[in-house]
């Protein structure tokens, strides 16, 4: 490409660079500058001394990290919550979409869709707040109901045993409807003649759902499943933080909540940055691997 061409494209592009500039500054200052800040994971960072004067300690924090029993608890909790999302939450929107596809009364369909999408627009504070109003041991609706019938109260919010089931149930409640959209879009694009052919062959509605609708979702399911695998390190930070309390910490503590508590609240900046870095690097490797895998499946990845 001749230089004059580049020069003319640059000149022509000037107004566009002006449009890009504010956004580019955002990415530079609030995304890339913090990435540089990761270097404090290799320091004993003291806010008072600042980045320049804080002493370098090499990989000390990482050595401590791998020897820390807390670290393995965080790792286990993250994996368990992700597995729950993957195997319990993931099928819910698929089933919902398949059922909605069978409901042919339009008014009914629209009503179900409108209502099941709604929780997506509620914040986690509201959702966890509602769960407190329903499940708390003294004032909660469920326990009031149990007590009124002479049954014992259940410590749904403070007993560690209930944390994981509640975690995944709340996810299903909040996001199934919204996550079904992508499957509904795939179902809407099925060639109607396929259904007609199935009817001609005398297939029942149940069989049609299993052998026409479900196979049409196959690719979307595989891709989304792989991409979700790539998100293994992300367990929904706000949800976990809000559901967490001193009594369920053994099962509810994940990397981000640990970093928040010990970094921001206690001030162990360098060590928790190392914890966060470990999580981000594993996350990056998983996403890149998952995306490569999805592409090899002959599908488009996310990028």
């Amino acid at each position, binding site marked *: 490409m001749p230089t004059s061409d580049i020069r003319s494209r640059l000149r022509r592009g000037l107004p566009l660079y002006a449009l890009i500039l504010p956004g580019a500054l955002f990415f530079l*200052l609030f995304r890339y500058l913090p990435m540089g800040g990761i270097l404090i994971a290799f320091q004993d960072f003291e806010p008072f001394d600042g980045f320049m004067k804080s002493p370098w300690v090499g990989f000390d924090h990482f050595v401590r990290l791998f020897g820390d029993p807390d670290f393995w608890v965080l790792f286990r909790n993250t994996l368990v919550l992700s597995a729950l999302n993957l195997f319990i939450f993931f099928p819910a929107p698929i089933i919902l979409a398949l059922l909605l596809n069978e409901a042919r009364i339009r008014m009914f369909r629209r009503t179900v869709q409108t209502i099941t999408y709604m929780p997506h627009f509620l914040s986690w504070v509201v959702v966890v707040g509602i769960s407190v109003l329903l499940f708390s041991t003294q004032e909660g609706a469920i326990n009031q109901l149990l007590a009124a019938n002479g049954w014992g109260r259940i410590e749904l919010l403070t007993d560690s045993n209930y944390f994981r089931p509640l975690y995944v149930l709340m996810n299903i409640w909040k996001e199934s409807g919204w996550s079904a*959209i992508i499957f509904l879009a795939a179902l809407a694009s099925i060639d109607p003649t396929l259904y007609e052919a199935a009817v001609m062959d005398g297939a029942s509605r149940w069989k049609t759902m299993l052998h026409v609708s479900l196979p049409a979702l196959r690719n979307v399911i595989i891709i989304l499943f792989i991409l979700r695998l790539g998100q293994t390190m992300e367990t929904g930070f706000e949800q976990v*933080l809000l559901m967490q309390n001193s009594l369920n910490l053994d099962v509810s503590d994940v990397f981000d909540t640990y*970093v928040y508590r010990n970094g921001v609240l206690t001030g162990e900046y360098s060590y928790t940055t190392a914890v966060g870095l470990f999580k981000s690097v594993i996350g990056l490797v998983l996403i890149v691997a998952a995306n490569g895998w999805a592409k090899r499946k002959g599908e488009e990845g996310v990028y």
Partner: protein
Amino acid sequence: MNRMSGSDRAFVGSVYAVLIAATLVVALPFLYVVIVSFATKAEVLSRGFFLVPKTWSLDAYQYLFRERNFLLSFRNSLWITLIGTFVNIALTSMMAYGLSKPWVVGRKTMNMLVLFTMLFNGGIIPTYLVVNQFGLLDSYWSIWLTAAIAPFNLIVMRGFFQSFPSELEEASRIDGCGELYLFRKIVLPLSMPAIATFTLFYLVQNWNTYFNALLYLNDSAKWPLQVFLRQMLIEAADSSMTLEIEGFEFGPPVKMATVVATALPLLVIYPFFQKHFNQGMLLGSVKG
């Protein structure tokens, strides 16, 4: 209309039954909260669980709308959402438009750099330290700036701008309009349905912002509604302390009323946007 066999009828019947059950499971918890917010404190404390109150009352709301901390945080949330969404839409649409022109030098690199931020980030502490370094703690700019652009929205919007016919651009260039004029007077007005959808996404993000506010705002007078609600409901339940913040005593109906007031604004506006995202606009438009 073709007649259905017995087994088909049973199948379709159970489809409707399951869908009705699922819809009830989604709706009932919220409905319960709405209903009890209209009950009296006395009835809730004496009767325990019920779905239909004997006396309906607006006490909880009257109480809530006289509570200074609630009103303050409601106003803070409105302000955060209003300015935040404006910043989001302005920065996202401008950058998306700039990156949508294939002849812009350096576009590929910038796209890669944007994409990378979706895969990797500095983490909570380094971002916090940067915000602190810029002196943004306890300022709403910490919230507006740290979440100014959602890369996913930027990429989808860029794809949308790319789908504009290039004749449009050529015609306006022959007419002697500049790029900025073209963007402001032609492209943006034609993009209103897409802008509306992203406005909704950003409205939700801003109204629901919780962790960033918790992290960056120490001054409780600046807290948005989400932090106020969490303080009132979840912290109090965890520590089993007296349910009282600064002399404000919360009976159950007042708590429910606060949940309703926090959730309602978005639930009211969302149906107006629904037609835009029903047809899977997120699907397929991602690649640019």
